[in-house]
């Protein structure tokens, strides 16, 4: 049985706001488990409770109720922190430091032996493409460079669990790709990665599991393969589809998607047989038939719309 890296039971967190300290519910009775060695993406709109959840796991926010354990330890314990590498949405460090000094500071705090520290710093600076900026002070860094430095300090002590809050913020496509590669490398080493992001295509690319939050609650959770295939539609791929052939399928609800010289006809499960028969009878070339996979983005928007309507 795979042990959980993070286990959350009934997490509730409220904030006090305004003059009369009105309570605002940020996370509402949230429970989830992040298995060891998995890559889990946390998605949700702004204010859904993603960052609050991450900060509660980190131990910087104190939950009103619920239990969190990291490898069996409470979030504020030194044992838990030794195993966590964290990067906040916008990484900030002391502006007067140069990247080597900044990493040395974080490395010493993480308990890295001084004889190993210089080597590790060099390795991380080079891996994150910051070797050329060694002599620059952090205050002259761009947002993207700061994010890279943030990732470097999170990885420096080789943690078992990477906790990343919007790690792609401020990164250009090249930077994003590098972070994805790093996540994949860490996953290959058996590390656990839990991160929040608005970039759903990236979540889809690297995550094993996804958790979607809305108004402090989990509204969807599961393996990426499972959640993205939750659809009642089928896709019939045909060749030589033309506008005038649309009449053939009169009375059937369908959607046409053209790409790469092929046409995909998206048809509901109930009408699949009928549509197939019509197409076969017409002699049109059918090149494929498969369940319609729903992208994470489509699923996200669909769930978001449903919630708004309800």
């Amino acid at each position, binding site marked *: 049985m795979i042990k959980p890296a993070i286990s959350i039971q009934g997490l509730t967190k409220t904030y006090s706001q305004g003059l009369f300290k009105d309570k605002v519910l940020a996370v509402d009775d949230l429970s989830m488990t992040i298995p060891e060695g998995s890559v889990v993406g946390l998605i949700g709109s702004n204010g859904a409770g993603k960052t609050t959840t991450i*900060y509660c796991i980190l131990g*910087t926010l104190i939950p009103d109720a619920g239990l969190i354990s990291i490898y069996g330890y409470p979030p504020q314990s030194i044992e838990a922190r030794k195993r966590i590498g964290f990067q906040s949405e916008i990484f900030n460090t002391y502006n*007067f430091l140069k990247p080597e000094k900044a990493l040395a500071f974080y490395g010493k705090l*993480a308990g890295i032996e001084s004889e190993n520290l210089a080597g590790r710093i060099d390795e991380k600076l080079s891996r994150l493409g910051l070797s050329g900026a060694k002599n620059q002070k952090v205050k002259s860094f761009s947002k993207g460079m700061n994010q890279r430095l943030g990732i470097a300090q999170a990885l420096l002590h080789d943690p078992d669990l990477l*906790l990343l809050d919007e790690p792609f913020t401020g990164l250009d496509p090249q930077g994003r790709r590098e972070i994805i590669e790093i996540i994949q490398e860490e996953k290959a080493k058996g590390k656990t990665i839990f991160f929040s992001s608005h970039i759903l295509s990236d979540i889809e690319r690297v995550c094993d599991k996804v958790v979607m939050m809305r108004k402090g609650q989990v509204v969807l959770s599961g393996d990426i393969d499972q959640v993205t295939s939750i659809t009642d539609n089928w896709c019939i791929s045909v060749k030589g589809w033309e506008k005038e052939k649309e009449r053939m399928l009169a009375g059937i609800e369908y959607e046409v998607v053209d790409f790469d010289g092929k046409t995909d006809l998206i048809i509901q499960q109930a009408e699949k047989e009928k549509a197939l028969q019509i197409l076969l009878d017409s002699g049109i070339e059918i090149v494929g038939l498969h369940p319609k996979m729903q992208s994470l983005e489509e699923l996200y928007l669909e769930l978001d719309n449903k919630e708004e309507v309800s």
Partner: protein
Amino acid sequence: MMNAVKYIALNTTAYLLSRKTIYVLFFIALFVLLITGADLYGLFTSEPSTDPKAMLSQQASVLSRMFITWSALTTFASIIAAAGIVYSDNKSKIVLGILAKPVARWQYLMGKWFGVLLFFYGFLAIGLLIVIILMLYWGISITVLFVTGVISQVMILTVYSGIAFSLSLFIAPMLAGGISFIFFSFGSLFEQLTNSDLWWASLLGSVLYYLQPAIVKENLLEKGVLNNLLDPNFSLFWSVIGENLMYAALLFFIAVIFFQKKDIIAS
């Protein structure tokens, strides 16, 4: 366990050294020192025939005035720095990166406060060095009483920066600094307020008097230079210094306990 405290303290001192305002403060302090030590010129140019006792008295007065002014400026600056140091880490979210490492909250707080102290002890030491050079030049011996006076100045810096630091964890830094500054600047007035005819003023004076750190009323620096205090009550001086350091430690301890359950960043 203390390694994290050491790294955070050294980093905090380095951070303060990187602040341009500190250098502005340094030159202001030097300027004020020159004004308070204006009599120095007279002391250097006076006739050798001048009465040695009167000369020593004047030297003692100038030296103590210079060091007390330097110390007051340093304490004032340390109050401002101590009140803002955690706030600035919080505002920039730097604190998240630190507390994500295996660092307990008390280690973080202790490191930040010690870093501020380390920096301002160094600042105080510069003023002390100037005074000691003058003492050696004039052939004045450094007495135990003078050393006690210096230690009492170190204690004042420690206590008031500790008050500002501890309060700033729960209230706005401006307010924390303001309260500490009132205690530091007007502490001796609270005792007078207790004798007021107005009941509320007397009550307020009593509350503030017992809340504030104890005060050494003797000018130990001047008396230490003159070495003319007959039968100095060292046990009293040391107990006041000890009591005040305990006061700062207790306040810090209470602040750490409450800080343990505080949300660091509210999103």
